């Protein structure tokens, strides 16, 4: 059977896309979710902070996850079903309780989310004791398991997710001894550090690098370096945050073009991958954004899929390649097919930088603004359609 749409991943992006497609009249949408229940990462973050952008409510993660699932009614959600390969032309190979099978659809959305970069991939020095956890593992142990993996960890990172881990720690009666940040200032918006320090009693140490982890069976301490001086901080755990990677192994091994800069699939401005049957949305496009951003991308991608199904989406084409230059880590969409509507680009800076954000079309500046960029903060810019007419290549830089 050839369905209208298959959605890989039942998180905010995938479920929002399913809802959108069902509302557009498609009654054969299939969501494939590898976990025993759909909902994605919010399922375990029991602190509030979810639903604002898409439902205009302030919910806890589990409530948000339930609302997303309920709102996707009309789509078939198959849990316990893992996509193991992408097949050219709109197919997926899946492993489910019934065994292995291949499923096909006119459109397939990749919405597989992210994972945290583990200790090994960061090449962190030291011993390898129990007690070094990613934020996802930490929140699941606390909220789903009701257990405390440690009492006095350090938290590595100061972006939004690190602060989420701080709230999770507080819930569990865990008292982090410090938050460590390599950059000279915290990544999350101020006054995150003030809140951490004054409301939660956790010192935030910027310009501090984790040098090594110490301990035998369990973590006993970390060694940190600040301004050339090393110091030992006693602790019994390490929470790793701040370096997320799209869950894009299927892309790297499959028929779609992979962008090493974002770590996700390359898309055009219709969320379409290089194989035009495939679309992608949510965190699989780039390192983590908050759930609202992922959900809105899911909705936008689903609209493009509905158009593709109706035959009204502009035909796939080479398009105008977009490049991130000096000062920028990445930019996406990686290809633009200009039409009548303005096109939005998302980018991230390589580090904190004050400068001018410039868009160059065939080498000429077509848009420019002043920007104080922080690492891991999204930069967005909108290009009027007129700017792109007749352009062969586009680059964005922060100089």
């Amino acid at each position: 059977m050839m369905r209208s749409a298959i959605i890989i991943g039942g998180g905010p992006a995938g479920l929002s896309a399913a809802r959108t497609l069902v509302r557009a009249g498609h009654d054969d949408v299939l969501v494939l979710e590898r976990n025993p229940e759909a909902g994605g990462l919010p399922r375990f973050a029991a602190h509030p902070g979810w639903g604002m952008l898409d439902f205009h409510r302030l919910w806890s993660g589990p409530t948000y996850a339930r609302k997303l699932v309920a709102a996707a009614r009309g789509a078939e959600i198959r849990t316990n079903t893992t996509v193991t390969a992408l097949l050219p032309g709109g197919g997926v190979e899946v492993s489910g309780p019934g065994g292995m099978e291949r499923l096909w659809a006119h459109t397939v959305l990749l919405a597989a989310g992210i994972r945290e970069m583990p200790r090994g991939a960061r090449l962190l020095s030291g011993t390898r004791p129990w007690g070094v956890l990613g934020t996802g593992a930490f929140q699941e142990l606390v909220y789903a398991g009701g257990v405390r993996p440690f009492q006095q960890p350090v938290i590595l990172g100061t972006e939004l997710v690190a602060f989420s881990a701080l709230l999770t720690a507080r819930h569990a009666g865990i008292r982090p001894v410090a938050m460590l940040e390599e950059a000279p200032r915290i990544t999350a918006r101020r006054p995150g550090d003030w809140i951490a320090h004054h409301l939660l009693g956790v010192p935030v140490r910027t310009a501090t690098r984790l040098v090594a982890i110490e301990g035998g069976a369990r973590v006993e301490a970390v060694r940190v370096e600040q301004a050339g001086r090393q110091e030992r901080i006693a602790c019994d755990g390490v929470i790793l945050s701040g370096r997320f990677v799209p869950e894009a192994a299927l892309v790297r091994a499959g028929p779609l073009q992979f962008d090493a800069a974002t770590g996700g699939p390359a898309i055009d401005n219709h969320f379409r991958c290089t194989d035009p049957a495939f679309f992608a949305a949510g965190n699989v496009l780039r390192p983590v954004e908050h759930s609202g951003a992922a959900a809105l991308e899911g909705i936008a991608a689903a609209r493009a899929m509905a158009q593709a199904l109706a035959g009204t989406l502009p035909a796939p084409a080479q398009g105008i390649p977009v490049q991130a230059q000096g000062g920028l880590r990445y930019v996406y969409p990686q290809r633009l097919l200009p039409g009548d509507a303005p096109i939005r680009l998302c980018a991230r800076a390589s580090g904190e930088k004050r400068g001018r954000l410039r868009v160059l079309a065939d080498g000429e500046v077509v848009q420019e603004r002043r920007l104080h960029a922080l690492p891991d903060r999204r930069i967005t810019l909108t290009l009027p359609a007129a700017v792109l007419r007749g352009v062969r290549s586009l680059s964005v830089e922060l100089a």
Partner: protein
Amino acid sequence: MNADAPAYDMAIIGAGVVGCAIFREFSLAGLRVALVERGADILSGASKANSALLHTGFDAIPGSLEAACMREGHARYQALHQGLGLPLLRTGAIVVAWSPADLAALPGIVARAHDNGVLDVRQISAEDVRTREPHLADDLLGGVLVPGEAVIDAWSAPLAYARQGLAMGGTFLPNTRVTGGSQAEAGWTLQTSQGPLSASVVVNCAGNQGDAVEAIARPSPFEIRPRKGQFVVLDKTAYPLASAIILPVPNERTKGVVICRTAYGNLLVGPTAEEQQDRENATVDQAMLEGLLAQGRRMIPALAAEPVTTTYAGLRPATQFKDYQIEALPQRRWITVGGIRSTGLTGSLGIAAHLHRLYAQHFGPLPTPADPVLTPVPNLTEEHPRPWQRPGRDEIVCHCEMVTRGEIAAALQGPLPAGDLGGLKRRTRCMMGRCQGFYCTWRVMEIAAPHVPGLVTPIQGSSA
């Protein structure tokens, strides 16, 4: 049976790969054997972290005991692996010359291999190397092909040996540290952290504690000088970038940095060779790991785009001597198996056969062996079907390595259950993939907690 008779015919101190292979050997030969290990599980020492290569011994010192044990170990593994469900990737190896000096050394490598009886080793041209390994940097100058070198798995092999030993009536005693002992006529009474243990013959396979344990019987003739090796494991997408094991031309101190596949579909770069005092902790070090990656990229430039899955380090039980330190002391009713430095995974089955002969020679004939019971270990490689591919599978808990709940539960039960989290990971591969437990830590804990106490504490309540 005499009340004073020792409880066991043989006590083996240390459940590394060498101890496990010896345990299997003598259990199969009909002795009552105890395998005594201070850790909570087998493989608590050197054997848990190595390159997992099955060597031919082509580069060993001709005439050494190590060369003989490797040759016999290599042959026995090939004969055994199918019956025990153990992987064998017949990748072959290529020693690659990157400089004129390297190139000049190749004929000597071939000659030594032939001295060692590894007769299929031959020099091949740069072009031949490039055809076989198109991803190697193109400034290579030539190579030596070693067809018999292979990739195996460092964890399932000793597990299978130990399980076969258990099936033949052997006893495994985890969490039992040997602290001393005294010899009487009938044999030894060993002092252990779990009380005394008597055995008629003691085998010292204590790896990096080999000299300390040897001191129970005599002043140790060798001194352990641990030599650390660090590794970087690359993502499964890197697997196609090398098909043979890529070896450098070795120097005096080390075999150098190797690039090879793993039985689980990753690509491995390492090891380093670093002398250290500490016998217990093998730390990883960012600068060294970056150095390994740089060397890897030097050989295979496409590695630059490959993500790192994890890093690890192991400690070779080296001594001041190059060769294995194996000796039977009939008067002391003691057998020393020390300094199994950098080839013990390969050599273990050969060492076991060698010990079998030593025993028969010095301690009398062995009882008639019973028919061997085969105890295959579950398949964890992608060569053969795994549970996640079968209809009716239960839920996948570890999504990166596709480990099902049933596989995890099974590893916590049975004749040799996982004794700790590391043992569970080594038996199932859960938490060992790309996300390293970001997504499955809790679900693994939930299944393991009743079997591996003390990892986590309930939030309301005192202790688990």
